[in-house]
């Protein structure tokens, strides 16, 4: 039970920075530790890691942006590596699923991808952790995507077209169409909320589960302490090997989940914009003229 609780504590956010849980080496972080049933309130470990991630992204990309701004061909591994991430998101995620206006929205996709990826990768570094293994953090990101999708659609096509975008396109008599739309509109409206909620759950569950598995395998080592030297060595070697192998899988998961979060945000945004544009044209709205959307892949993804 002690070992299980430790694995759980290792992954959950807290006001203590655990270094070696087994030896109870931990750094207390500033905050009110007794608040909220002992969970505390303050500058948590994940808050610090998120700040580190944000700082690292700014440290890399703000100077790099000045180089890219020149329009010259990228030089060197550093420039190529970090620019290729941006061009991948722009060319292979934003443009196919949002369309010609992708450049208006790619800022958010770049930010969310880099932030999620950096937070995911922090989990692969010993003594750090992955803030994306916190449901609070992934909920904020998913809520951010939800707000971004809605605000983008409203700003582009207006309130009316945006709200109508949740009604399905039906080729049938108007009375029947209105009747069915009234029934389906709340489902579609809730559908976007649920999709964004699932974004949060998917990211959190993958990262949390991965780190739980790694922590659990490593905590087999103290669990067998005192049960014989042979068993201790066997379990230690097996645990370390298992963690190394699973870490490779986790590395892949970190990249995949960051990509999925960004990809699905682009996909949901593209869908809402397309429907809103349709209604803006149908009802002669002031917005949406000249904004074409590339439908490539969108229908398949739905």
């Amino acid at each position, binding site marked *: 039970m002690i070992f299980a609780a430790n694995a759980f504590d290792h992954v959950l956010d807290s006001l203590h920075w655990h270094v070696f849980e087994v030896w109870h080496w931990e750094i207390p972080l500033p905050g009110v530790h007794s608040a909220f049933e002992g969970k505390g309130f303050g*500058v*948590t470990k994940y808050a610090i890691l998120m700040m580190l991630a944000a700082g690292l992204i700014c440290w890399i990309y703000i100077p790099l*942006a000045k180089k*890219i701004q020149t*329009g010259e*061909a990228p030089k060197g591994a550093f420039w190529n590596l970090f620019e290729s991430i941006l061009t991948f998101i722009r060319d292979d995620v934003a443009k196919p699923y949002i369309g010609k206006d992708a450049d208006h929205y790619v800022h958010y996709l770049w930010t969310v991808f880099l*932030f999620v990826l950096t937070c995911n990768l922090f989990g692969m570094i010993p003594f750090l952790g992955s803030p994306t293994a916190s449901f*609070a953090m992934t*909920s904020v990101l998913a809520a951010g995507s939800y707000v971004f999708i809605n605000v983008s659609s409203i700003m582009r096509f207006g309130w009316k077209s945006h709200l109508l975008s949740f009604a399905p396109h039906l080729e049938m008599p108007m009375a029947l169409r209105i009747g069915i739309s009234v029934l389906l509109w709340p489902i579609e409206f809730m559908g976007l909320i649920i999709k964004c909620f699932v974004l949060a759950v998917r990211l959190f569950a993958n990262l949390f589960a991965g780190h739980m598995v790694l922590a659990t395998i490593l905590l087999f080592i103290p669990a067998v302490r005192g049960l014989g030297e042979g068993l201790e060595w066997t379990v230690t070697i097996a645990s370390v090997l298992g963690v190394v192998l699973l870490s490779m899988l986790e590395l892949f998961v970190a990249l995949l989940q960051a990509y999925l979060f960004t990809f699905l945000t682009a996909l949901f945004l593209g869908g809402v914009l397309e429907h809103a544009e349709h209604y803006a044209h149908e009802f002669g709205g002031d917005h949406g003229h000249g904004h074409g959307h590339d439908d490539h892949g969108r229908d398949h993804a739905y």
Partner: protein
Amino acid sequence: MVRLRFLAGLLILVFVLAVIGAAQAAPDKAAAAPSAMDLRWDTAIWSIAVFLFLVIILRAKAWGPVLEGLKKREETIRTSLEEAKKTRDEMVAIQAQFQKELADAHQQIPKLMEEARKKAEEMTNEMRAKGMADVQVERERLRREMDIAKDQALKELWEQAAMLASVLSTKALGHAVTADDHRRLLGDALQEIAHSSRN
């Protein structure tokens, strides 16, 4: 625009309040044991703060220049491709023209050779004719000069002969010959000489 910004702000506010509300409600339910799905509201607030900061700072300082650079590069690549295509088309046209001219030249070679041969032959004939004419003119000139020299020599010979005849006749007759005798004797001598030269 102001209305839409107000709307965006309102949505963000609603979202923040919803997260905080959920975070505050969670500890009461999960007081006994920690749950993976527990929402730590301090983590949520830090997440909002850090993520919003990151979105704003990167949009202001990084993504604008990045997009500008990427578009500039795309434009450069597009222009270069167009120029390369144009140059290639020009090269193809020039090559086609060159091939056509080369083929024409190949076709004209026998004709040119024939023309050159004819011209050379004409020139040779012309030069030959001119040479022959020159030789003929020279020959005529020499003949005329020979005739003149011959006539001159004959005249001198006749005068010398007349002189000798006069001298001889004077000696033979023993007295001076008069002008009428001279004229008569000279006439006879000339007739004889002319008669003998014809014979």
